[in-house]
């Protein structure tokens, strides 16, 4: 059974700082997704990582995938308040996604 562990689960950081969210998974997969959720909103797709060594960047967020280590990271650079949200990683296996528990990020002024 595929298991996905995300950490930290809660992250409070100051504006301007950098931080990394980690996503480990237990079995081989070549597709990993990062989503952002604001309260009461849908899961917004941030990144789709399709192969080992994939790195994608959008604004202050950068995601990478190491399929050999079964690890993905979501790096936040110079955080701003607008990045406050819950971030999920999800690994594709068969016809479904297996999600981590989510990281609730709060960026303080």
């Amino acid at each position, binding site marked *: 059974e595929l298991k996905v562990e995300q950490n930290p689960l809660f992250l409070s950081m100051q504006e301007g700082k950098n931080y990394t969210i980690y996503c480990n998974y237990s079995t081989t997969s070549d597709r990993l997704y990062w989503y952002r959720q604001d309260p009461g909103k849908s899961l917004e*797709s941030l990144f789709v990582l399709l192969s080992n060594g994939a790195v994608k960047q959008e604004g202050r967020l950068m995601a990478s995938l190491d399929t050999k280590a079964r690890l993905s990271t979501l790096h936040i650079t110079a955080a701003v308040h607008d990045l406050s949200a819950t971030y999920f990683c999800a690994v594709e296996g068969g*016809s*479904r996604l297996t*999600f981590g528990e989510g990281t609730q990020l709060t960026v303080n002024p």
Partner: protein
Amino acid sequence: EAGVTQFPSHSVIEKGQTVTLRCDPISGHDNLYWYRRVMGKEIKFLLHFVKESKQDESGMPNNRFLAERTGGTYSTLKVQPAELEDSGVYFCASSQLDRGSNGYTFGSGTRLTVV
């Protein structure tokens, strides 16, 4: 392009009652999925439709849950009778058959509270 639409957005029902959730996927998306997030835990898979057929329903918690997708368009998820532990947020997602580099599009969810 309209996104994935779910309604109601919120539902509060008493234990033992019946509730039906609806999901309208993106037009042309043959894959439709239901997921659930209970009590702030991880989002868990419930089932997967390809067009009108159930491809995988291994995540359905028990026989109080019934999902349908008549005609391969919108889908409903009925909970009958509802129990307290069914409370949570129910998400629907859709995708094309061949996702390529695309992923899944999620709806905003239905928050179900059973009291």
